[in-house]
């Protein structure tokens, strides 16, 4: 009898879920930014906020690209320098430097980027896969977006937020 009960209940739950129909669009919204010479982008929904540089606290025993932690309205959040992470040289923060706070489920981290470009709307069909040479499960590249005059590397936020040391 309890099995029946379970069935009934789970069926009801399903009904509720179906009511909110998923309206998927074939336009992807991204936020573009520059690191070094390249333009990169991440999905706009994975960005919690973008803030101006801020003081942070160094954390010992971590790779150099983990700059430390900072206080985002009461939460202690790691700060990662994407320049260093992508193997570029260190650069002084300028007026255009921003921290992009990205989240993936419960994981949150701030990323230092050289400057923002713009919010980008791009059709799904204009996004190609990452070049074969860097394919594999380990890449942080999700795909390559093509626009009239430029190419944008789209990053995997969950990979960026993954601890790799």
């Amino acid at each position, binding site marked *: 009898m309890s099995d029946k009960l379970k069935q009934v209940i789970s069926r009801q739950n399903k009904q509720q879920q179906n009511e909110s129909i998923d309206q998927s669009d074939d336009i992807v919204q991204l936020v573009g930014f520059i690191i070094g010479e390249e333009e990169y982008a991440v999905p706009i929904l994975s960005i919690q906020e973008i803030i101006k540089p801020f003081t942070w606290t160094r*954390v*010992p025993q971590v790779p150099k690209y983990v700059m430390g932690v900072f206080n985002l309205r009461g939460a202690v959040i*790691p700060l990662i320098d994407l320049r260093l992470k992508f193997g570029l040289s260190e650069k002084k923060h300028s007026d255009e430097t921003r921290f992009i706070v990205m989240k993936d489920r419960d994981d949150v981290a701030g990323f230092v980027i050289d400057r923002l470009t713009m919010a980008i709307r791009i059709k799904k069909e204009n996004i190609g896969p990452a070049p074969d040479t860097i394919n594999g499960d380990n890449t942080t590249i999700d795909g390559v977006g093509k626009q009239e005059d430029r190419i944008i590397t789209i990053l995997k936020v969950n990979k960026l937020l993954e601890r790799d040391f």
Partner: protein
Amino acid sequence: MDEFQEILQDFLVEAFELVEKLDEDLVELEATPEDLELLNGIFRVAHTIKGASSFLNFDVLTHLTHHMEDVLNKARHGELIITPDVMDVVLESIDLMKTLLNIIRDTSSDAGVDVSECVARLDRISGGDGDVPAPVVAAPAVEVVVDEPVAEEAEPDYDNMSDDDVEAEIQRLLEQRQTEDKAKRAAKVAAGEEVLAPPPEPDEETSAQNAKESEPEKKPEPKAAPIKAPVPRASTNARSISDDEDLSSDAKAAAPAKRSNASVDQTIRVDVKRLDHLMNLIGELVLAKNRLIKINDDVEERYEGEEFLEELNQVVSIVSLVTTDLQIAVMKTRMLPIGKVFNKFPRMIRDLSRELNKKIELIIKGEETELDKSIVEEIGDPLVHIIRNSCDHGIETPEVRLANGKTETGTISLTAYNEGNQIVIQIDDDGKGLDADILKNKALEKGIISEKEADNMGEKEAFLLIMKPGFSTAASVTNVSGRGVGMDVVKTNIEKVNGIIDIDSETGVGSSVKLKIPLTLAIIQALLVGVQEEAYAIPLSSVLETVRISKDEIYTVESRSVMRLRDDVLSLVHIGDIFEVERILDSSEHAYVVVLGLGAQKLGLIVDSLVGQEEIVIKSLGEYLKGIKGIAGATIRGDGGVTLIVDVVALMEIAKNVKATSMISDQKSESAQSREKTKASDYTIMIVDDSKTDRMIMRKSLEATGMSLVEASDGLEALNILKQGDHHFDAMLIDIEMPRMDGYTLATEIKKYNRYKQMPLIAVTSRTGKSDRMRGVESGMVEYITKPYSADYLSSVVQRNVNFKSEFLS
């Protein structure tokens, strides 16, 4: 959440609570077998669990509890005497029941445990004394499990119903149940008075019948009862036997309303997550409070004597007072009496004493002492190990005790009490005690310590050897202990909650283990220390003292730094060596040593400065940065910055492997001057003045030389430019009167940096007083130019100070 899961959860919560109480009662029952009150209580527990589990289709559990119920029922009616042997079987069945409940919790099913043997034994006990038992109870003993699900209320075949029908059926049953409940409650009120005179005999039959009949109706109960009303167990205990067992949960729900208003605490069950969330919010508030206090201090300094200050002061102190109270209040909601942990020990001692053939009495004191829930969960295991240890190694056998002139029965006392911000749990036994020499020899034998360490070891340190993994003095491994694992668990768990272990013992008289545990984990007192430009927080509970020392008090022994602290030698480690702090600032002649204590271990941590004591809220560094050795978390300070919290346990570990870098290292001053200058613009001068005109005048005076010039409008800006290290400055021109940071302070700050030690600082000011000049010299200025000055004079002073080569002058 799935509703079935919800029902199951409620069932489990209730069942675990009941079972916990059961253990205690059963042990007591053995001592007073004729206590009907107790028996009834126990019987009801078995019955409740049986009822609920049959509703939830846990056949194995139902099967088991049913047989337990039989035995207990017999005992209840005086048909069975509870002997220790009977008790062993009953206790075993309860253990099985716990195992089953655990399995249910983990897998939502009760498969995989074989209860048949235990059931058979239970059956033998209840069946053993003939056919006296009422047939109603005994007969369905075996079939019940198989029969009931089918037989209940002769319901229509659910499997063939459509889903809608099933729902309608559920609705119908619920309604039926509700009306029944109402009727019962009404009856209860009427029956209330009669209940006081218990007629156990006539009750039996109806109860058995009711029990059978009402089985299917049980369904809404496990769900409804715990939610609607907290279970006021006291009241059910106080009630008499005559209650039909199937009504008991009913009675629980109804009781507070009509009977024991006064004696029962009003409680509500709250999800721990909500409390955690509340605690987090309080944490935020404490941080905001700290910040407010800091701002208040700043404002006070700035507007000294202003009237509004007093009002501000008042508000700040009220806010901080209320915040503290609020924090305590919320902390209290998370507190559980330690009795929750202590409860299981009477049973354990009983089992152990039977197993070991010793006579042991357990005395529990202070079980009402309260501790944070998360800590209560952590200390259960350590206590088990300590008590097992006391029973096995501490307490002697009765013969030995008598021979030594002690009483036959050994005593173990378990005491909990508050001491300041800590809870102390003390476990004393009057056994043979620890012998420091034996411990040392054993440790030597096992290679845990070296000969030298053994010689230097004090008594207390020797006692702590029993906490080492792999250490055991037991001649042979018994069921109870001797594997050398248990006490290591104690150490790990206690250290996990920032606790301290203290062991005291006297050979032949007994030993005493004290666990000192902080009240809560979320908000702690911390000592903030500074090293270079960084700050770290050290939990105050691990800080024994702080000492100010001068550099020559530090000695090096076998490439490790040590110092003499009164009569002891304290090994030292620099916090900068542990946390890879870059040494930018020159360390002063004096340093502070924070003496950390953990158990009997001590370590001196050298820091540059002591910032002060502060209440901090522990925040996790999150998934990305977790597991950094030596860091326990982070906290947010009054100024909004993040400060890392030192993990003292890990730090002690790290310290063992850190090579001391010499404190008095004369840094190779890679001085700016030594750089080859090939053209005039290789010389860089910083001009610090808040007036734009003045900066302009200086710039004009120096431009002719071709030197590179950098401007800053006040001390702070200048300092920041220096810190960034973009330029290599050969000299600085500094105005004295500036907002934010004046010239004297700037000069003092600059001189703290090794790399700028040699840089000439030139004061350019309209202050001409002698005392001004004196201050200038004190703060490290080499020249003092008074405004107004001629351009040539300024230029020549600068050129002289940077050794400007004249050939660059065009």
